[in-house]
C-alpha cells in the first residue's frame, strides 16, 4: 500500500534508553493474530506499558505525561529479533514518524522504510547527549529534514547528517512504495525467468 510522504518533521521526542529492544517487546506475539493492518498501536510495548493485572505501568516512558511527540529515541540495536512487520506498524500506528538510534536491526529497518517510518541512525555521542537533553527538558525538540538528511537538536546546537539509500529517500519523499516499482518491472522479470 502507498506510504505517507515524509519531508521535514519537528517534534518533541520520547526517550527509551534501553539496548536490544527486540520486536517481541515492540509487539508481543500474542497480538499478531489480526488479519488486518490496524489497531497495532494499542499494543505497542504492551508488556512494558501495562502491569500483569492490566493496570498502567506508570514507570514506563509512554505513560509518563512529561513526554510526548512523534519521535522515538531508542538505545542501540533497536528492532532485533523477529521479522514481524507488525512492529513497524505498531510504532507508526501509535503516532511515531521517526525512530532515532545508533544502530538498527536489518529487517526492522527495511520494514520501517516500507511503511513510511523513518529510521535515523545517529552517532553514539549524539544519542547519549539527546537522551540527557530530553531527560533534563522534556520540551526539547528535534528536527528531522529528510531532503537535507539532517537531524538537529537546536537547543544543544547539535546537528548530524544521516545516511539513507537514495532510492528509499525518493520513495519516502514522494510516497511511492516498492510494489509500484515492481509492477512496472513485469517484462524484465519475465525475460529473467526465460534465461
Amino acid at each position, binding site marked *: 500500500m502507498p506510504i505517507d510522504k515524509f519531508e521535514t518533521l519537528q517534534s518533541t521526542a520520547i526517550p527509551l534508553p534501553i539496548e*536490544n529492544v527486540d520486536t*517481541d517487546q515492540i509487539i508481543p506475539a500474542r497480538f499478531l493474530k489480526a488479519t488486518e493492518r490496524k489497531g497495532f498501536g494499542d499494543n505497542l510495548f504492551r508488556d512494558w506499558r501495562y502491569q500483569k493485572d492490566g493496570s498502567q505501568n506508570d514507570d514506563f516512558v509512554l505513560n509518563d505525561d512529561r513526554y510526548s511527540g512523534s519521535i522515538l529515541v531508542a538505545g542501540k540495536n533497536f528492532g532485533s529479533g523477529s521479522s514481524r512487520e507488525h512492529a513497524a506498524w505498531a510504532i507508526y500506528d501509535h503516532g511515531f514518524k521517526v525512530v532515532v538510534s545508533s544502530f538498527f536491526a*536489518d529487517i526492522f529497518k527495511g520494514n520501517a522504510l516500507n511503511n513510511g517510518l523513518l529510521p535515523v541512525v545517529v552517532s553514539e555521542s549524539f544519542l547519549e547527549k539527546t537522551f540527557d537533553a530530553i531527560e533534563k527538558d522534556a520540551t526539547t525538540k528535534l528536527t528531522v529534514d529528510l531532503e537535507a538528511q539532517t537531524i538537529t537538536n537546536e537547543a544543544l546546537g547539535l546537528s548530524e547528517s544521516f545516511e539513507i539509500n*537514495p532510492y528509499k529517500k525518493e520513495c519516502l519523499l514522494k510516497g511511492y512504495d516498492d510494489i509500484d516499482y515492481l509492477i512496472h518491472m513485469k517484462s524484465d522479470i519475465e525475460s529473467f525467468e526465460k534465461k
Partner: protein
Amino acid sequence: MQPKTLFDKIWDAHVVKQVEGGPNVVYIDRHFIHEVTSPVAFTGIENRGLKVARPAQTTATPDHNVPTIEQDKPIKDEESRFQVETLEKNCSNHGIQYYGLGSQNHGIVHVVGPEMGYTQPGMTIVCGDSHTSTHGAFGSIAFGIGTSEVEMVFTSQCIMQPKPKTMLIKVDGELSDGVTAKDIALYAIAKLTTSGGTGYFIEYAGSAVESLSMEGRMTLCNMSIECGARGGMIAPDQTTFDYVEGRPFAPKGEAWDKALAEWKELKTDSGAVYDAEFHYDAADITPMITYGTNPGMGVSVQGNIPSGTDLEGTDKISFEKSLEYMGFSAGQQMLGHPIDYVFVGSCTNGRIEDLRAFAAFVDGKKKADSVTAWIVPGSKVVEKQAQEEGLVEVLEAAGFKMREPGCSACLAMNDDKIPAGKYSVSTSNRNFEGRQGPGARTLLASPLVAAAAAITGVITDPREL
C-alpha cells in the same frame, strides 16, 4: 574471473536489476508462507486487483497459532482459528499448495520445506519469518522478510533488497561428546553479540560444520538471525545431496543429474574475500545455556553469569534490566539452578534427530516431578517417524508425552505458554522477555541440556549424568 563467495554466486545469479542508487531487484525461487505474516499481503494485492503471480512457487502451512493437542478438533481460540482459516481461504483463492491441519505433511514451515524437498541448493528462498535462514543449510540464500515484501513476492516473484556483506564463520576441529550444532550457534552468538552479524550474510565452514548432519546444519543456520545476520548458509556437499534426493519435490531422473552437476559447483572460490571472518576451534565449545534476555547472553553450562563490572551507560542499564527480569544475579553459577519447564521443539530443534537425541538421553531415566515438559515434533512427518522408531515409547516410559506439531511454546501464540516467573529450558531460538508468555523466563539450550534438566529438575551438564 574474480573469485566469488558462495553467497555472491547465488545472489548475482538472481539479480533481475540493480536500481540506480538503490537496492537490487532479486528474483525469488521459493516462497514459504504461514498464517501470521501473509493475510495483510493478500489483502494488499487484492486491493490492487492482482492475483499471486507465481502460485506454484509458493507453499503454505499454518504453524504459529496451531494447538499441540486435539488438532483434529476446531481451534478453540477464535482469533487463531480465524487467522488459520484466512490462510486456507487465501491459498484456495490464489491456487497455492496448502498443508493444513489434518494433512500428513503439516508442520512448521521451516521443517516442512526441507522434508518435502522444496528447499534445494542454489535457490533464493524467503518467508515472512526471520527463521527462514534455516534453509541456508542446503547452500541456498534464505532469509526472513516483512509483510510488505511478502506482498512484493506475490506481485512479482521479486523483492527489493540491498546486497548484504559477507561473513565467514569457520569452525575447525572435532566437537566433543555432548556438544551439538545448537551449542555452536549459541557459542558463536555469545562471541558476536546479538547485533554483531547485522548487515551480513554468514557462510559457515570448517571441519566441525562439515561433520554436521543436515538437521544439525539447519539448527545452526536457523540461529543466524540471532546475531543480527540476515541468514547463514553452508556449501552443499554429499550430505546435502543425500538428504534432498528422493524427496517429493526434489528433481528426478535427468533433471536430478543436471541439478546435481550444478549444485556441485556451489562453493566459495579459493581466494574469494569475505567482508568479515571469524575462526573458532571446536574444542573450545561446550554445552551452552543462556542466562539473559537475548540469545547473545549465553555461557557454557558449567560457567557463571558475567560480573558486568566492565559495562557502563546503556550497556549497564540493559544488562541489569535483563538479570532482574530473569531473577538472576551477576556472577551467579548456572549449574544447579532449579527449573520448572522444558520445551523441546520449534524450527530450531523440532526435527527427528533432536527427538532421537532427547529420547536416547532420557532412556531408562525418569522425568523430575517438578518439571513440566512439552515435547513437540516439528511436523507430522517427524511425529510419524518418532512413533515408528519407538521414540514415543521411550519418552513415555521416562514420563514424557509427545504433543502434536507446531511452533508451540517457542513464541506462545497458541495455548502453550510458560507462566510468569517460571524458568523454562527451551530448545527454541529466542529468550526475549515474554517470548514464551508474559513474564516467562527462558534459558536457551540444546536438546541434550534440556533432557538433562528435565531429568534432574535443575540446570545440569548432560556430560555428567
